């Protein structure tokens, strides 16, 4: 195995990892604020992918140009779902929310099955086959765009959380709900905003994914497992952890596939997952217990 091939595989892993990171960021934001694990995250990604697919096949809108449509649309969906369904059904209990999001996932997946059947669908664009040469490696153009797009989206999200009033409110609610309420922060609104932003990340991820990926009603489940691993690896609620964790998992998966074959390739991801839980349960960047 020479260096050129390792290099290409690592690059390939980094590009995949950046999109993983974007999916995981949404998950970790929702966890950090709402303290719930959103089981509907994968299903929401699937909905976003069908959205991008529909825009392309029905209206001929390029997946990248669909960003300004998909990101707000997913945000609105998230806001409405949280305020209209999850918040109402939870009655203030975390374990209820867990069940509600699980139920949502099942409903969404089966609605997609009803509407689109279980066919795997892809889109073809003019640049699907275009490659970029980086030293000895050839990388598909959609993957390069996905890499930088995902990094940019992460940067925007970090700025939003650290530099804006909304971001401060989100962090305040995440740290101390009652205190935030006493300071006049509308906690229900912040909850719904966080959920909306979490899903908006998926809207962006879907736009970057679809040119080089596919969609079917079960597509989300593969991502959600990886995203949970990343969130645990990076530390629950940590943004930097999610980003680094995503890139790391992407590379591990790619190298695993290269050395162990496609069927066994993902074993590395779950080995890391177990190792982190055993030796550093708070994750790389997690707050000390």
């Amino acid at each position, binding site marked *: 195995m020479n260096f*050129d091939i390792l290099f290409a*595989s690592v690059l390939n892993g980094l590009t995949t990892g950046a999109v993983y990171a974007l999916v995981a960021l949404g998950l970790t934001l929702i966890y950090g604020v709402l303290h719930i694990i959103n089981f509907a995250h994968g299903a929401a990604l699937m909905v976003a992918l069908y959205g991008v697919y529909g825009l392309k096949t029905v209206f001929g809108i390029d997946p990248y140009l669909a960003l300004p449509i998909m990101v707000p649309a997913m945000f609105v969906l998230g806001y409405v779902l949280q305020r209209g369904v999850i918040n109402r059904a939870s009655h203030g209990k975390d374990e209820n929310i867990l069940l509600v999001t699980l139920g949502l996932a099942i409903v969404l997946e089966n609605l997609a099955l009803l509407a689109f059947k*279980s066919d795997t669908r892809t889109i073809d664009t003019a640049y699907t086959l275009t*490659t970029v040469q980086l030293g000895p490696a*050839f990388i598909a153009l959609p993957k390069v765009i996905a890499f930088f797009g995902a990094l940019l989206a992460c940067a925007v999200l970090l700025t939003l959380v650290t530099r804006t009033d909304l971001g401060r409110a989100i962090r305040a609610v995440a740290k101390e709900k009652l205190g935030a309420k006493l300071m006049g922060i509308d906690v229900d609104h912040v909850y719904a905003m966080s959920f909306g932003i979490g899903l908006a990340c998926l809207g962006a991820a879907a736009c970057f994914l679809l040119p080089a990926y596919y969609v079917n009603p079960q597509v989300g489940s593969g991502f959600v497992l990886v995203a949970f691993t990343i969130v645990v690896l990076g530390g629950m609620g940590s943004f930097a952890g999610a980003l680094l964790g995503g890139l790391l998992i992407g590379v591990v998966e790619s190298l695993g596939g290269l050395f162990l*074959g*496609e069927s066994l390739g993902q074993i590395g991801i779950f080995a890391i997952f177990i190792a982190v839980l055993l030796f550093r349960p708070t994750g790389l960047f997690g707050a000390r217990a």
Partner: protein
Amino acid sequence: MRNRRSFIRQSVAAASALAFPLVGGAQPKAIKIGILHPVTGALAYSGQQCREGALMAIDDVNKTGIKSLGGTKLEVMLGDAQSTPQAGTAEIEKMNEAACAAVVGAYASAICLATTQAAARYNLPHVVDVGVADQIVERGLKNTFRFGPGYRTCAQIAMSNLHVLNTAAGKPAKTVMIIHEESLFGTGTANLLAKELPGFGYDVKEVIKHANPTRDFNNIVLRMKAVNPDIVIPANYYNEYALLVRTMQQQKVAPKAIYSVLGGAASSYKFLKEFPDAADGIIDCNHWFNPKDKRALELKKRTEAKSLYYSYEVFNTYTAVRLLADAIERAKSADRAAIADALAASTFNDHFMPYGPTRFENGQNTGAQPLMTQVIKGDIRVIVPREYREAEPIFPLRS
């Protein structure tokens, strides 16, 4: 008042229900045929192609009906195996309940293995349209008949022809890499090749398995780059085949030949049209029609008039249904056992496949053989055997 009304309504309904069988009995009863394919799920494209081929055959048969039964028409019962053996088995149960006389299906080997077994419990004749795994016809099932060749035949013909081509070219190819899908068809084919190729003097450098669906072949192609084989042999279904070859093109991997054995897209007009550059020069040992038979070309025109591609799924299933209709004709009966007997004794000759007259041995048509095709100048041409040859083979592709 309400009671009397409902009494009258129920009486009318009961009376008409009693009357209907009498009316129905006056007309020649149609013979119900189950057409079972994976029209949703990972194999949806191929399954739908199969279904289209079957429906065209049924149309053709129904122009005259089954003559020995006074022009009785075939009635279709469509089934969806959802790309899984379990769903295929469930559909067989339904078809048995619905009193189908026979079943044609179910494309993928793994599905056929399950559906033929399920159908055997009801002595329901099952014509396998594609399903190349040899286990399908090796379990002694009396209801199972396969018109086309199995993967052992295909692999053996492919290997001996590869050897002939390579020897004629001065033996430029020495190393081989096999990439196959993980179910029965791909694994079985790959095992056969990996076992037998060393006997022909080839070094099988690596055998790589992948899932259905796989949407990223970069790792496999990177490995291919490292191994640098002279010949790449893919055995997989359409989507993965297409993506594999496209990724090879992206990564600028160009072996001396892409030599497919039952390659899902290697001799596909769809692939040729969508990716002419990627398809150029690919050799395939696969189901193919006799290119010199006018009926095959007429069906091609009819298929294309429906905006469909004339793929092996279409003509394989088309002929499978014609084989069954011929058997019902000879059986002069819609009885399951009579149809199975007629299939077993079939000498069906009115077809355009390069098989010669039909003769079944343990459910396998002994004359069935694949043809070798190559994509040459934007068309799929038969290169081997000589009696069907349309173009001289180009081997090696890149010296």
